[in-house]
């Protein structure tokens, strides 16, 4: 290519020759990084020399030249080159999607393996005939409130993130774009509800989640996962407390960055948006990973663990095994009630007296 140019310039003034050669060396330079990877996408790449690539590479290298003015008014319209766009793209495509995907998949597979090895953690003493009030109905209410919103946000977010590699091959672009649009709109609308739910959760549960003396030994003994012995803990154990603080702190990052992302009209530039997206995605993957573990313990991982959130009452033996500091104290204060009374309070068939009572009112 360089040779043909040289031939064309043959009829130019001879004394310009040396400068020309210098210039040619300057023009014939490697392509911009965008042009370089065209083979990877199956686009026919004729060896095209694009003068624009060279110009824009120069623009990129000179930071003081990227900010100018433009008669077109808008966010970032005076900025010539999007400084971190390339980094953001690499983060999303090469780190977030593969690493995030395999991390979540790994957590699910790991938990499945753990379940196969360890099985369901049973209540060793068996179910007793006594129960303890673990969560009031308000506490259950806000738990399931945040849970339902979280599930919706997590699923819709994961569909947007992993839909292209996972769902498009299955259902095609047209069908997926309908789902993706639904997820995006739903995600944006439900997002602020998560803030409301998180505030309610924080106010209600923060006091019981402050780290205490026994928490370190709980951590050192692996929370009782290793070996059969249970580790003493208070109302919430070290793991639950850590999950709470993670949800609060990482959740705040997710919420704050989410607000940046859903308010494109706030006038924040792309750099803020890219940064917010990175924070939002990393935070979300972390929290989803932790919540998968939380759901595992609540459902198939441990006998009696979900009772407190389902009925408000937990088994006394379960409480003694998993939260003995709290259970002992509650027992001493006479908060233990019999199974019969609990079912009378809760069960529809045997709750005639309660129903009658309500009707009398």
């Amino acid at each position, binding site marked *: 290519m360089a040779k043909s140019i040289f031939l064309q310039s043959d009829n130019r003034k001879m004394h310009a020759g040396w400068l020309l050669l210098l210039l040619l060396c300057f023009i014939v330079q490697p392509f911009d990084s965008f042009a370089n990877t065209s083979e990877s996408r199956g686009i026919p790449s004729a060896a095209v020399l694009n003068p624009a690539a060279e110009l824009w590479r120069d623009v990129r290298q000179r930071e003081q030249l990227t900010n100018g003015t433009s008669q077109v008014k808008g966010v970032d319209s005076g900025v010539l080159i999007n400084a971190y766009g390339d980094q953001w793209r690499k983060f999303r495509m090469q780190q977030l999607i593969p690493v995030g995907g395999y991390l979540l998949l790994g957590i699910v597979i790991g938990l499945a393996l753990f379940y196969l090895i360890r099985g369901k953690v049973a209540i060793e003493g068996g179910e007793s005939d006594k129960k303890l009030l673990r969560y009031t109905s308000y506490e259950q*209410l806000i738990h399931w409130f945040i849970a339902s919103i979280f599930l919706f946000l997590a699923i819709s977010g994961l569909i947007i993130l992993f839909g292209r590699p996972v769902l498009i091959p299955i259902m095609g672009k047209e069908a997926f774009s309908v789902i993706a*649009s*639904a997820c995006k*709109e739903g995600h944006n609308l439900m997002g602020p509800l998560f803030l409301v739910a998180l505030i309610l959760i924080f106010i209600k549960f923060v006091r019981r989640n402050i780290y205490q003396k026994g928490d370190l030994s709980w951590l050192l003994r692996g929370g009782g996962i290793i070996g059969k012995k249970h580790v003493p803990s208070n109302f919430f154990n070290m793991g639950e407390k850590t999950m709470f603080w993670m949800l609060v702190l990482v959740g705040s990052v997710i919420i704050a960055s989410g607000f940046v992302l859903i308010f494109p009209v706030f006038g924040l530039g792309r750099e803020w948006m890219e940064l917010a997206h990175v924070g939002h995605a990393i935070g979300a993957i972390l929290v989803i990973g932790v919540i998968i573990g939380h759901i595992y313990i609540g459902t198939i991982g441990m006998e009696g663990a979900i009772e407190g959130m389902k009925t408000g009452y937990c088994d006394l033996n379960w409480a003694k095994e998993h939260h003995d500091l709290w259970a002992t104290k509650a027992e001493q204060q006479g908060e233990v009630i019999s199974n019969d009374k609990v079912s009378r309070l809760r069960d529809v068939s045997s709750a005639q007296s309660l*129903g009658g009572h309500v009707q009398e009112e």
Partner: protein
Amino acid sequence: MGQFIDGPLWTFSLSVFVLGVIWRVVTILIAGNRSDLATAKGSAGKGAIRTVFSRFVPERTVATRGRIQLIAGYLFHLGLLALLFFAKPHVDFIAERITGLSWSAMPHWAFIVSAEAAFIGLILLWLHRVLNPVTRLLSDLDDHVGSILVFLVMLTGCLALAQAFEPLRLIHLLLAELLLIYFPFSKLMHAFTFVMSRGYTGATMGRKGINA
């Protein structure tokens, strides 16, 4: 399918809704009440009107003991009312398909805020209904179907917010049509009958000279 949802089914569900509501209201009205032979100590009409409005403000013990239901209830009902009648897509739809005349819609941000308020309210109310032993006992299938149907209509509406994908609009419309058909035969009728039940109590009490 899309044409059916958009055309005949819409006409059918709207007719069922209108005729059903009229039928329900008329049957309640013609049931009448026994004539009160006692001397009136006050105006029944005044008492009825008074009570219809005074019951919007809950009694003190109800307000404190049922605080969640009160807050969530108001969030849900006001949010739903606002987004039902003052959201731009709904105003346009009503003008085009029913009334032929439109009114000014609220700005988009207010639409979203009211939708979020309605979602907070409805999710909390239904969870409370399920989790609280007393309300669970008092709820029958109708309550759950009504709540879930309204929730699904709201959810599909929120998923269709982009207003760019026809299938999403049709799902929202289909569920709204099912809701319209279900409405007159369910407790959702309280949207109309609350006036009558409050009015009845108010009239009875007003006639007796009691501020109820």
